[in-house]
């Protein structure tokens, strides 16, 4: 099973491995969501949705459905 951003625990830091470019909003990619960049999970709202993340220095909130599309490695 591949590890996705949604599988991380609060406080974890990982590296973005890959994603299907069509399934992510352009805005997220422009905010630094690119393969090789680091991503940390800072906080989650109830039901782990949305997620509060730090992608290579950008602090963002994204929904779980989007996080499930981003494959990461620890």
């Amino acid at each position, binding site marked *: 099973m591949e590890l996705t951003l949604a599988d991380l625990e609060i406080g974890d830091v990982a590296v973005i491995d890959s994603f299907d*470019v*069509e399934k992510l*909003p*352009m*805005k*997220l*990619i*422009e*905010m*630094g969501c*690119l393969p090789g960049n680091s991503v940390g999970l*800072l*906080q*989650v*709202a*109830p*039901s782990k*949705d*949305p997620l*509060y993340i730090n992608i*290579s*220095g*950008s*602090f*963002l*909130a*994204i*929904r779980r459905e*989007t996080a499930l599309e981003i494959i990461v490695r620890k």
Partner: protein
Amino acid sequence: MSKNINVALIGNPNTGKSSVFNHLTGLNQKTGNYPGITVEKKQGVCRLPRGVKARILDLPGTYSLNASSLDENVVVELLLNKNDKDFPDVAVVVSDVENLKRNLLLFTQIKDLNIPTILVINMSDRMRRKGISIDVQKMEEFLHAKVVLVSARKNEGIDVLKQHITAYKSISTQPCVSIAQIDQAYFSSLESTFPNQSLYKLWLVITQDVNFARVERKKMAAQDANHMRSPSFLKRLQQKETIKRYQFINSVLKECYKKDSAKATDLRSKLDRVLTHKVWGFVVFFVVLLTIFQALYDWSSVPMDFIDASFAQLSDWAKVNLPSWLAPNLIAEGVIPGLGGIVIFVPQIAMLFLFIAILEETGYMSRVVFITDRVMRRFGLSGKSVVPLISGTACAIPAIMATRNIENWKERLITILVTPFTTCSARLPVYLILISLIIPNERILGANMQGLVLMLFYLLGFAMALLAAFVLHKTMPTNQTSYFVVEMPNYRIPLLKNIIITIVEKTKSFVLEAGKIILAISILLWVLASNGPGEAFKNASEIVAAQEHVTDANFNQKLSAYKLEHSYLGRVGKGIEPLIQPLGYDWKIGIAIVSSFAAREVFVGTLATIYNVGDSEEETIKNRMAAETYADGTPVFTLASGLSLMVFYAFAMQCMSTLAIVRKETNSWRWPAVQLVVMTGVAYLGALVTFQYFSL
């Protein structure tokens, strides 16, 4: 010849762009709308050395030139259109020292449009604390642009920025990234189809989101369908472009930007641990809301009573002292009470804008978006709908304008449609005056009962908005996947100057806009109330004199009551009386309701005008309402009729300006028509049920 320099201020949201704008222009600014759409357009004038003037245009915050919302689209449209009268001679890109890397992405895009560009690195006062150092000179060489360190907070660097703007002609227009290197084959073929045109501009036109139905894109597609590849092909290229840009940015930052992360103190994570917490986050949010509503009621009653009393006095003074050619009756009975009905709002509106500005400026609003998104989604809304719904407590018009950063059309439309249910400040005077009439000023469990009822009505508004959203969500088709990417900005202490400017500007525009309508309606009402059709009005004094129980002492009072009843206005009120009687209203309230369909805030002013015409005793509006009785002596304003009236105002769509803004935002009369009919229907039924229940 001295020409005005056109300056465009561009930057990511949360970079302090408006602080820089406020520093450059002071109060020398005006806000309007872009033609056809309601994206706010902020412009100002800045005086530069040697008598040169600059017109500063504060463009909406944008993360990139690949627009994904209406706001961002405004920026792209302007920058692509050289013939626009606002097309900038020089672009000032405002960035935040802590997010420089991401902010530079937008900078490189602007630079590639061959516009002379100045990079402002704002919040430089935070550099030392965050252990950041920047080699400005080196950076200027790498970026082929001017770079200024600015601290809007400490007013540093603004003069240097002004000098650079003055000397904009000497700034290089060399691009940062050559777009052609992303895909040689694609771009060289594009170049041969459109020789002598900027490749990057062509590329931007090709990739503009089709949602915005850009004319230029269609024109180009007709000319050359070859390069309009599939969205996935284009998106892949866009990703490659983004990677190229970040490679360039990283190579620049490596040379001239150093961060000693050991020095970074972290306020953000400490506060976020509480404010975005699953439980504590909600607790804090409710405490914040509760504080705001209690404060609104407690703090504003003193200035409001003062304003109410002052206008009553002014009215009496005018009646006695104005020369007859100024029509003292019209002024004392129509204009002054009407204006009083709007000025009385000012304390509350200003206070609401104060709270909203603080929530926005501190960065707390984004945390609210984060914790509420999941809940709101159940109702077909998004966390981003919370900001419009909360702003709706000030006024639905800016609130509906604030929906434009919701990318998903369905979520945005639902937010627009339900926002008018939230309790806007125009309902507040109606509530306040009715609550003070029908609810005792007592404490229950330590809380002021009147304040509690007021909060109840705010909650009722929100509940109705959510219910309506849920119904719409279930009945409207979904045709677009929803994207949700929200920046969580750093926490900041708000700048006093920004907050004051926001309050002054927003309150001023609200009062002026609403004031115009209210003034017109007050005059119209007075004329309609002072004139009437036929013999019954013309021979009023003879008819009244012939009535029974008329003495010299009560003749004048009887006469004016008779006149009002037989005036044009009275006939309208009498005409709708059968319709509103089941709700517990008499024909005078009926008149107030009818005129409120222009704008709710007219209610108090209208009653003031009507009662003043009916009775010229010098009393405040409130006392006058309390004394109002039916012919049999029972009071008009009881618990049942008061609550029923409040419910009616809570739900009814009584605001022409809101309807106009919804028309603009949705680009069709269909949605405002739906709002008018459905909301007013709900209001009628709600008021009917309330009155019948409480009269039992």
